């Protein structure tokens, strides 16, 4: 190679290096600037959320995110740990003897973020708007039972129902649709179901800046009537990908990642093990259940259902699959919900021999030399449907497949999309399905409601129960009872019967996880599953 060529190459190479290094220096300078501005922390908490926070309309559902709605809008009453209902925008309330009339005494001096007064007039206006779209909200039991809304005086609001419905007070604590929008937020025709003018609420946070699909910044509402948040701002970055969320957190761009399934349990455990971050795991928020369709021949026999229950090691499965972040469940509803503590269930442990005996008794015998039990020439074969996007369900399904194979049951596992899973459950096209209840403040009454109603999958799941009709009658009666003691008795007996007959097997208690930087303090999970956890949090400067 000639000298000229070599020198040309050297020149080219050095130019390339020069350009590259200039670029890199340029980048690092900008980044330094970014981190400096971050260093002078403006008391802002940055979190990531998989989806855009939405348009912050308190009266509709998608795409607004529940936690964000709960930052801006407030309910009359709020749900606290153990199912206690505490005053919020209503400082007190009375319920008539017959359980039909609810009179709310509103908190005085509460202002919307635009300075207007919160009073009975605006409460009625919100209620009436919601009731104009009652079909949309009919899933919330009390909405279909409202007969009248009245302004008694400036600070007193009266709600009359057509029949007694005790969960009304609990349902008023949900995040949507019964929270209050200020007058300035209403469109001209007053119909908020098509959109709002601007998000005006009474809550501790005000939406300050919003860029769809990118971020939303909330600032503290300095005129908030309640305890003022310690943080000045909260930035919610939209990061749809779980791995990216973790990388951004590790880089320090995020102060906190929290929620249900926002990062995988493995990642959570791995980050925790580094010791660099603080972590927190919530109380049970729901129970992961296996629901069996007792309309299928095999599962119509209670002995078969019980055998399946005895035939797998729940402790080991939950520990193994969820790395100990979920807890083995003994009850079909977590016992931190109202009326769920005093349910005297028959405890079912891991007992392979008992499972085998039960199957033998049910007539499913294991022919010599074969691995699957048979009865009248039919194989003991069942199908388990799981959400293919949920790694926990998949791993549990695989575990069950091998566990039940040991007792001679052939389990076929089918992964489907979530929307498909819901549809097939409803249409009764399943043998066994994964399900989890709704959590606080919806349960236990919502769970009983869907078990009692047709078209949710449960009504059919318990169709082989000999006392099914009686159970359903009781479930319909529960919300109408005004007597607290009777209500508790009904709940205890219904939940016991549902569980003891084995069509619903509790597997584990689902929990929320949170991981945050060491300078974030006072993090607590809210008792209401959908509420935001920002009250009380502070950042050490």
């Amino acid at each position, binding site marked *: 190679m000639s000298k000229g060529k070599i020198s040309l190459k050297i020149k080219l190479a050095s130019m390339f290096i020069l350009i590259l290094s200039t670029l890199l220096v340029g980048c690092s300078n900008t980044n330094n600037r970014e981190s400096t501005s971050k260093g002078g922390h403006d008391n802002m908490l940055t979190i990531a959320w998989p989806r855009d926070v939405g348009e912050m309309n308190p009266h509709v559902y998608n795409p607004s995110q529940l936690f964000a709605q709960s930052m801006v809008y407030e309910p009359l009453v709020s749900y606290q740990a153990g199912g206690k209902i505490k005053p919020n925008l209503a400082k007190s309330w009375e319920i008539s003897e017959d359980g039909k009339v609810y009179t709310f005494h509103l908190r005085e001096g509460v202002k919307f973020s635009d300075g207007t007064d919160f009073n009975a007039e605006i409460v009625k206006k919100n209620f009436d708007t919601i009731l104009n779209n009652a079909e*949309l909200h009919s899933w919330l039991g009390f909405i279909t039972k409202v007969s009248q809304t009245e302004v008694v005086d400036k600070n007193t609001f009266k709600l009359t129902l057509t029949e007694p419905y005790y969960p009304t007070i609990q349902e008023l604590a949900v995040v949507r649709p019964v929270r209050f929008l200020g007058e300035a937020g209403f469109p001209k025709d007053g119909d908020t179901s098509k959109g709002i003018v601007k998000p005006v609420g009474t809550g501790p946070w005000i939406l300050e800046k919003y860029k769809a699909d990118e971020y939303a910044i909330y600032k503290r509402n300095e005129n908030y009537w309640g305890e003022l948040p310690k943080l000045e701002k909260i930035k919610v970055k939209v990061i749809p990908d779980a791995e990216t969320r973790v*990388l951004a957190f590790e*880089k320090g761009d995020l102060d906190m990642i929290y929620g249900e399934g926002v990062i995988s349990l493995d990642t959570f455990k791995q980050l925790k093990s580094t010791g660099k971050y603080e972590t927190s795991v919530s109380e049970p928020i729901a129970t992961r259940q296996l629901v069996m369709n007792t309309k299928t021949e095999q599962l119509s026999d209670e002995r078969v259902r019980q055998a399946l229950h005895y035939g797998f090691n729940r402790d080991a499965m939950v520990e193994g699959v969820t790395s100990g972040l979920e807890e083995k469940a003994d009850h079909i509803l977590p016992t931190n919900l109202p009326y769920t503590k005093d349910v005297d269930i028959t405890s079912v442990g891991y007992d392979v021999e008992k499972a085998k005996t039960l199957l033998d008794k049910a007539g499913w015998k294991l022919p010599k030399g074969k691995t699957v039990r048979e009865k009248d020439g039919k194989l003991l074969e069942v199908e388990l449907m799981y959400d293919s996007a949920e790694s926990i369900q998949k791993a549990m399904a695989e575990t069950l497949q091998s566990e039940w194979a040991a007792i001679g049951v052939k389990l076929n596992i089918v992964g489907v*999309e979530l929307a498909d899973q819901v549809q097939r459950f409803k249409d009764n096209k399943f043998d066994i399905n994964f399900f989890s209840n709704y959590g606080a403040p919806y349960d236990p009454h919502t769970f009983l409601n869907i078990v009692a109603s047709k078209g*949710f999958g449960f009504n059919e799941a318990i169709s082989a129960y000999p006392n099914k009709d009686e159970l359903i009658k009781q479930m319909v009666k529960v919300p109408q009872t005004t007597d607290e003691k009777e209500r508790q008795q009904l709940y205890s007996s219904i939940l016991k019967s549902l569980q003891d007959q084995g069509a619903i097997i509790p597997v584990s208690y689902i929990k929320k996880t949170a991981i945050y930087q060491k300078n974030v303090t006072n993090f607590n999970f809210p008792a209401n599953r959908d509420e935001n956890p920002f009250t009380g949090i502070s950042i050490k400067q």
Partner: protein
Amino acid sequence: MGNYILKRIMSIIPVFLLAALLTTGMIHLSPVDPAEAYLTAAHIQPTDEILAQKRHEFGLDQPFFIQYVKSIMKICQLDFGISYVSNKPVWNEVIYRIPATVQLAIASILIAVFVSVPLGFLAGVKKGSVIDHFSRLLSFFGASIPTFWLGYILVFFFSVKLNLFPVEGIGTWQHLVLPSITLALPLIAMYTRLLRASVLENLQQPYVLFARTRGLKEKTIMTKHVLRIAISPMITGLGMNLGKLLTGTIIVESVFSWPGFGRYFIEAIFNRDIPVIQCYVLIAASLFILSNLIVDIVQMYVDPRISRKEGQHR
């Protein structure tokens, strides 16, 4: 040539009709009722009344043919309906997100062209040299590394470890670097290989020998003749990839939280947001057609033999 272009543009119409038919049919083929999917996504318990109301609102209670005709008529007015999820016009939502995707696509194409043209050309001219080996290695990696994985690796090293670029988001040019490199690498792999093969093939052609005997400088032969002709298959590849790029951005946009059209589409799939999916399919179809058309025109310009061939046919 004008007739030819007109003919090509007209061919968009049947493709449109077919795409609209497919997307309308999709609703009926899917095992999941969109009204139900909407309610599930919104955490609403689907009672019969809400389902009926939503189906009526979405026009799903009408016969298939009516739904099809209505959707065609609407598309002609650029009305893709209202998103089931956001309750806002799909077209407005799409228009809002397209610039981000276009920005990403252009940056990736530029990177791909700036890297692959010199690399592929030199690899072809200097077959067996270090640069040739390097180009083959790069092509091998570019073609075989999954895009999302490459994205994570780049973020891990350049953002988390070296703190050179932001992990995610949009706004500055630094935000653009990692996602566009991620998107460009598979393109670089493909174009480099294409150009290298094409250069090698052209070097065997008699016109190169003729040019050499005419005493033309080697540099002139390579740049003015070989490169100009050899680049033609690469332009075809580039055009074919314009449409593909749109689909490629789906993954990259998700990994880098890039607020573009691809991410919007992914969410629409999960929510069974049919109007958005319909809009995406139609835009993707027209983009494929248009990019092919543009490629043909550019090729006629670059390699006049093609237009002469067209002329001979006519």
